[in-house]
């Protein structure tokens, strides 16, 4: 073995040593959360083992209590509702608009485009204060519609930005042929452009799902009624009431996390693409 090879092996060991220790730091809290959600109250207070000493009966009973008595089942379904409906409308409205911006002529086109995507570049903290007052005036405070309208509106700028870029790159020939064949503009958008945009749509679906599922501040400002709360909001309500019931809280956190982790593991590539697109905008 020559000295270069020995040096390379040593370097590899150091590299993996650093990477593995950081990786363990990343996953440990998540495993700790799952593990604690399977323990009994006494065990959480007495044992610091990562492997719960309980049987499957405790696991089921913990999660049943979390879903039913601690209301996490309701919160979970609300989150599913907000995410599915919100993402659907963001995709539909943003793709319609970006197709218009990319292909069609109308008055004030570039003005409206820059107006719409300006919120990507200008940070507007505290906009939840006037939003609260607006929803109150529209009698949409503490309603599902009110929260959804905020979510949909928030997702539009990035969606339009990403999809317009995508439509701009698509060849126009097929669409022009379809136009000559008498297809309406909406028909072209719906049957030709939208199916071609699938890769960009997938990125948008994932990014917006993550955003809506994880959103907290607007849900805090808009909702008071527990029956309408998404899970992030529900977690804080639960935590405020049963401050030391750690197994149940951890079960709630796990319920809030599992869908995200599954989507993440399946759709990692789209997420990375979306992050890169978001970071290098402007």
């Amino acid at each position, binding site marked *: 073995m020559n000295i270069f090879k020995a040096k390379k092996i040593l370097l*590899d060991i150091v*590299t*993996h040593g*650093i*990477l593995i220790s*950081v*990786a363990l730091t990343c996953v440990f809290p*998540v495993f*700790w*959360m799952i593990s604690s959600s399977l323990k009994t109250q006494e065990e959480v*207070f007495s044992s*610091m083992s990562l492997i719960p000493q309980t049987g499957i009966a405790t696991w089921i009973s913990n999660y049943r209590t979390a879903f039913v008595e601690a209301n996490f089942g309701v919160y979970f379904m609300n989150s599913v509702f907000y995410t599915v409906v919100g993402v659907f409308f963001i995709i539909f*409205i*943003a793709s*319609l*608009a970006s*197709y*218009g911006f990319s292909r*069609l*002529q*109308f*008055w004030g086109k570039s003005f*409206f485009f820059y107006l*719409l995507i300006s*919120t990507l*570049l*200008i940070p*507007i*903290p*505290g*906009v*939840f*204060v*006037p*939003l609260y*007052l*607006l929803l109150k005036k529209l009698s949409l405070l503490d309603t599902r519609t009110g929260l959804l309208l*905020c979510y*949909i*509106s*928030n997702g*539009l700028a990035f969606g339009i930005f990403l999809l317009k870029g995508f439509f701009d790159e698509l060849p126009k020939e097929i669409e022009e042929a379809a136009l000559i064949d008498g297809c309406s*503009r909406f028909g072209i958008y719906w049957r030709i452009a939208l199916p071609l945009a699938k890769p960009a749509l997938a990125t948008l679906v994932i990014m917006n799902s993550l955003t809506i599922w*994880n959103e*907290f*501040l607007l849900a*805090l400002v808009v909702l008071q009624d527990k029956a309408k709360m998404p899970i992030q909001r529900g*977690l804080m309500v639960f*935590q405020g009431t049963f401050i030391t019931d*750690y197994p149940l809280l*951890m079960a709630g*956190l796990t319920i809030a996390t599992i869908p995200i*982790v599954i989507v*993440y593991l399946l759709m990692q590539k789209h*997420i*990375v693409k979306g*992050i*890169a697109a978001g*970071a290098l905008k*402007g």
Partner: protein
Amino acid sequence: MKASPKEKSLNFLFIAPALTLFLVFSFYPILRTFQLSVFQWNGIDRDMLFVGLAQYKHILFHNPMFWKSMLNAGYVTLLSLTLQNGLALLLALLVNRQIKGDNIYRMIFFLPPVLSGIVVGLIWKFVYDGNFGILNHWLISLGFVQFQDFAWLSEIKTALTSVAVVHMWKGFGYGFIILLAGLQTISVELYEAAEVDGADAWQQFKNITFPLLIPIFTIVSILTILGSMQIFDLIYSMTRGGPAGHTHVPITKIYEYMSNGEFGYSTAMAVIFGMVLLVVSFAQIFISKKLNYNNK
């Protein structure tokens, strides 16, 4: 092909839904923020009392808690800029060395950024717990008995730093992914040419990697500043601004004033804070323009 006026107005229907939603739920609230900020108003009364810039003056000169919250967010930002982005850069460089398992590392490092701020905050609150937290358990078994019952999030000295550590834990993977993507755009040929010319690893880093990475590192830094200054979910789930206001940040202050029904005052604070962020994001626009220009 020119569109007829009738066609043009039909075309407008494509953007009408987006434009309507945007104008009502994004644009109008922005304008309203400025308008509200010059009134004293509790959100209920019919009459709003016009006070001009008095609330701005009060926030800037008579509200030490606002400055404290800015400093707190600044502290978190400073730690993130140095430690978090330093770690992100180091890891990106290590993973970029074509080592085994780079996909697994990438997958794991980006796990914390996809979790919600509330979930992360509540897990770590449990880890930090004075009596039942695993952190103190480990510290004590390592012989640091002074940490028996030490409540990290309730002690004035440690609360903010403890939250900042969690913020960095959650955030470094984000910079890591962007930096790694940047590193992978650097052409291998550059390194091969340098190798032929006899440049060692350090010289290659100094003369190829580093200069080409500067624009991307700048973007990551700006995103870090904007993200860290606007920290909210973690603070809300871990300390709610306590102990005694020592972990308040601008957004928690704005929320607090709003909850107390001081709508005018909270929007004035939002405007001031927004102006500070605007300076940072102008820098972002300027730098990414320059970056695009260099690419062409």
